């Protein structure tokens, strides 16, 4: 750090406060990009390019979010939205209009759910027999049955959910906005982390955690599905331990001598710190990701002892450990599109429920027993739902095609009303008809839970003021907010 007061610029002042003498952790943030934001690169109204914690617009309910993204389109009429009328009309032709994606297998035959529903908890929430574990959390859930994207395609709707505008790419994702608005609570872990699936990336790949037009500081850091979960975190065997320490010490000497020849050059100072930070992270991230530290009963609670649930359970457990350590936004994706049950739904849907039911429920219960659920928003849901009519024939090959007109998601904790079922689809579950909630409403509501006003939270880019919802119609769904 420059010791010559003549070169004390605003930037080095910021550096001193963030890393000041006596700061316990020099490793302050994972992405230390431009901690000393170069003013030339910041548009006038943007937050400075740092991850310093920032005050929300008003008192927040939530300070962290875990999104269990159920990519592919979970079949709401088989999981959370029972339709007796659909069962009654099973096998008859649907009289309304349907938009199909897979016309070659399209049919207008209504397809009653093959599964039974029961009411659960004091709230009496309807949950299908396919999700016995989530059913036990019924009184903590806030179930929204009236989601509507208006588009049946995966990409169109998933971009709507993450980026705020249907089909459009190049935009920052929800996690980017939260981190931009609030900064990071963690001093040694990335604020926005994504847990990818061994089965591969979701459709659209890295666009799902892109920071779009925002600085890369705000993009999601992807944890790999297997060890090593963070690339390059470990030193190669030859450099483990003292060797790397000596290397870094020598590098530091080179850099400080160079800095003396370039006094006041903040980029060079940031670079020096980025190495210090990286070294700290090697320890912190390793610790956070090590689920073997969890007691046996916790590991079993998440299903780590069962082949079917081990992978998803491990990721849910990591998500909890990350949130506990101050990570702002964690999103768990599935590989491919396991909820995209176009055919063979009678075997495919139970299989994906089996993989995810117990870990998802464990996450809610575990957060609750640790007192973290109050401030941690858990979100479970896909980008679309599925049609009430059959795709293919009403036999073992039966499936359901895409449906962005009406479907279900749920949230828990983080200030949403527990034990609530909100909104409704029509009598067969095709279209949301009551208290319709769009992804933009969902986003406005999530930001609100974090104490952020979606109209105020703006980022200057591309020559204009950009917002998550970008001026589209949206409302904070106040009915979903916990009032007590």
């Amino acid at each position: 750090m420059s010791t010559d007061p003549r070169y004390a610029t605003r930037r080095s002042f910021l550096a001193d406060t963030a890393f000041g003498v006596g700061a316990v952790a020099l490793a302050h943030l994972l992405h230390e990009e431009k901690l000393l934001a170069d003013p030339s690169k910041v548009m006038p109204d943007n937050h400075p390019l740092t991850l310093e914690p920032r005050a929300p617009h008003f008192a927040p309910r939530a300070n962290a979010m875990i999104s269990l993204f159920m990519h592919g389109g979970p079949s709401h009429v088989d999981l959370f939205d029972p339709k007796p009328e659909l069962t009654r009309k099973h096998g008859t032709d649907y009289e309304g209009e349907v938009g199909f994606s897979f016309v070659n297998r399209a049919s207008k035959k209504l397809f009653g759910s093959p599964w039974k529903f029961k009411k659960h908890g004091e709230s009496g929430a309807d949950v299908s027999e396919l999700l016995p574990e989530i059913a036990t959390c019924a009184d903590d859930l806030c179930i929204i049955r009236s989601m509507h994207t208006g588009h049946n395609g995966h990409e169109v709707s998933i971009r709507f959910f993450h980026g705020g505008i249907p089909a459009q790419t190049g935009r920052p994702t929800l996690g980017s906005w939260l981190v931009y608005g609030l900064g990071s609570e963690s001093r040694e872990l990335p604020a926005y982390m994504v847990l990818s699936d061994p089965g591969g990336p979701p459709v659209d790949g890295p666009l799902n955690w892109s920071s779009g037009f925002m600085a890369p500081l705000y993009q999601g850091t992807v944890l790999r599905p297997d060890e090593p979960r963070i690339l390059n975190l470990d030193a190669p065997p030859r450099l483990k331990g003292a060797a790397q320490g000596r290397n870094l010490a020598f590098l530091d000497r080179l850099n400080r001598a160079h800095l003396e020849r370039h006094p006041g050059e903040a980029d060079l100072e940031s670079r020096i710190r980025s190495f210090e930070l990286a070294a700290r992270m090697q320890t912190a991230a390793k610790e956070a990701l090590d689920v073997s530290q969890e007691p046996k009963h916790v590991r079993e609670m998440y299903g780590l002892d069962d082949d079917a649930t081990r992978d998803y359970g491990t990721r849910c457990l990591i998500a909890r450990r990350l949130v506990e350590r101050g990570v702002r936004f964690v999103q768990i994706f599935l590989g491919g599109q396991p909820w995209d049950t176009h055919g063979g739904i009678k075997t495919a849907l139970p299989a994906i429920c089996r993989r995810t039911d117990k870990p998802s429920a464990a996450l809610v219960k575990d957060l609750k027993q640790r007192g973290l659920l109050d401030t941690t928003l858990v979100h479970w849901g896909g980008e679309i739902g599925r049609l009430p009519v059959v795709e293919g024939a009403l036999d073992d090959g039966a499936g359901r095609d895409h449906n962005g007109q009406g479907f279900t998601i749920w949230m828990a904790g983080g200030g949403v009303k527990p034990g609530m079922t909100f909104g409704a689809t029509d009598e067969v579950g095709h279209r949301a008809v009551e208290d319709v909630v769009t992804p933009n409403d969902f986003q406005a509501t999530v930001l609100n839970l974090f104490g952020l006003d979606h109209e105020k939270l703006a980022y200057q880019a591309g020559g204009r003021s950009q917002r998550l919802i970008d001026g589209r119609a949206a409302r904070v769904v106040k009915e979903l907010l916990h009032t007590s």
Partner: protein
Amino acid sequence: MPQVRRWVAAAVLAVGSSCPALAEEAPSFEKDVRPILRAYCLDCHGGEATKGKLDLRLKRFAEAGGTSGPALTAGDADGSYLLARIQDGEMPPGEKKVPAEQVAVIERWIAAGAPTLRPEPESLPPGLPITEEDRAHWAYQPLKKPTPPAVEGDGVRSPIDAFLAARLREKGLEFSPDADRRALIRRASFDLTGLPPTWEEVEAFVADPREDAYERLIDRLLASPRYGERWGRHWLDVAGYADSDGDNPNDTPRPYAYKYRDYVIRSFNDDRPLDRFIVEQLAGDELVDRKDGLSPEEVETLAATGFLRMVADGTTSGGDVPLASNQVVADTIKVVGSAFYGLTIACAQCHDHRYDPIPQEDYYRLRAVFEPALDPSHWRQPRGRLVSLYTDADRAKATAVDAEAAVLQKAVAEKTDRFIAEALTAELNKHPEPMRAPLREAFAAPADKRTDEQKALVANNPSLNITPGVLYQYNDKAAEELKKDNAAVAAKRAEKPVEDFVAVLDEAPGVRPETRVFHRGDHRQPTKPVTPGDLTIASPEGERYEVADAPADAPTTGRRLAFARRLTDGRHPLVARALANRFWMHHFGRGIVETPGDFGNLGVKPTHPELLDWLACTLVESGWSLKAFHRAVMTSTAYRQASLRDSRRDEVDPDAALLSRFPVRRLDAESLRDAVLAVAGPLDVTPFGPAVEVVEDGVGLINAMGDAPRRSVYLQVRRSRPISFLTTFDAPVMAVNCERRADATSAPQALMLMNGDFVLKHAEALAARVVAASPGDAPEALDARVAASWRAAYLRPPTPEESGMAREFVADRRAALERDPDAKDRDRAALADLCQQLFNSNEFLYVD
């Protein structure tokens, strides 16, 4: 108004808006109030709709009011309904409200008597008109070469310096002294070639006594084939270059996209005039007559149209093809807009641009230029846009080979049938005689014609079902023979000439789709038809450029060619400015307009508007020569100055926007990778050709196949597999295109340098070379190695202090390795640690 006077008026306006004394004056409708109404109200009141019969496009309309009566009473803010509704938060509806400070502007304006700058017309045609204020914006002024200010002094070598020095002097600053020669050659080499100079080149330059040593250096670098690879890469960012379609789930590779990349690199190396470069990229297909075969030059010209084929094309993903194809069109228009206009024209896709004078109709007029070639109603998927490069001779040869192969194939088929018949007879002979005929008949009968009895026979005697695939189980020798025969057929077919293709954007003959404005940008809601043309604001009032279609029997509509010629006629106000600004940005790290993709109202104003115009005009006058532009810029004092900060400069010019010093910059992703390869030794400078494929390694890092040491520009740009090292250092992952790269400093970068294979491996390579040149245990050998490492990485010898420090470090590492029984080649390993730190250090990563 004559153009000159308008320009002066604009300058006065620009000053006015930044001068506090004038800002206290009463606001005017045109300058202050209308922009607010435009952003918040005009969509429903006068633009797309006239709700409540209230039109707010003119003050007089507001006074006339709508169904609720007059909206405005001049002089009476409290009595003006318009203001009341806004203050109550009732208008605009929805959650987007007019900010308080803007409401205050409206209030002050009404209170001051609601003045207008000039009399308003009686009526207006529908839509949002382009106003005089709109037209006064700097970016739309006709290009006119300004005279450089007369600035005396040592530091002024060229007109560029004069413009910059005049501003600096206003602020009491001067240019910094020239950088030393070592800094200059490193700066210029990275800038023009993306590679460091060699040690020998540095020494030669430092020792060159000639007056014009520096000018010669620039000429040498401009003549290097490496130049096009560096500056072509800049252009590929704007074009959104990618070697894959971005479709789901395959992200299908584009095996021929590289021909566009090579075209770009060749164009830069040849200093192809930029007007021609633009015309070829937008309309190369219209310049080539394909009827009489294709010359290599014609293939190049066709490949140039790859510019319009670079965005992601998801139309093969299944799903909503009209949506996906319309997205391709919209993305392509965005690329065109950012490359040539420097405007955010995409905003006008759904409605009249809220901040810039781009009516929605203009957006669709632009779309009409491209729609015959990018036509969602007759969509052609990527593979349907390939043009075969087969010559007539190739085709004749292929036909002949096919014919010969068919003869061979027929013989093999007959032989196969014979072998099967023989095997069947032998097999039938194992059955009792009376059964043989019925069995033979049952198997010979077509499957759907068999009687129940025959079906049973077939089902119960699977061993009689002899196919070519199982023949070997009955007659091994026969099967072997057939295998050889089939191989001979395949060998014959392989004699066909390999069919090569070029990916082209062109029009299907005879297809002339109608372009309509889409309501709210939704392709399912087409409204009124439009004809092709340039943006209205890009021409003087009343002179909007319209594209005239070629006659109906012409092979193409000629729209893109006409449009491209219009862009490059040398008078277009946006094109030369956008290009000059972009090239300037690559030299100095920031443009004269800091937002290269937005010259509009929300963009950042130019720091040196006259310099920008001078550069733009000079670019056109030079015959659109980019190399002449480089020479002019790089021989200026501004470019040659040192990068050191001091407290005075930090105070007045903290981010070097005024260029009181040269900004220090980190190497970009490609330069960093290429520099490590060059310094370590293995850099392969083979130019051109198919992209080097990328693969994912065991831990998930994506790298060039076989760690190929080719220059980064030749590595495959697979959207779903961005190269880990490059993206970590801010190479763009192409969503659409990249107008300006981020320049981040992050812990993942540090981890990549500390622990990633790439740097480790090449540090070892450098160490191996250095140890081999100075072997042995003598202290002199170690000194020589340290010095050689310094020269390689830093292009200078170490100071005695550095030398001592490095020797100590290497000795210490060597001693530690001595204690490790498994360590191999300890001299090299110890030195590799030193080399890795040199690669990772700021002196290597940054350019002064």
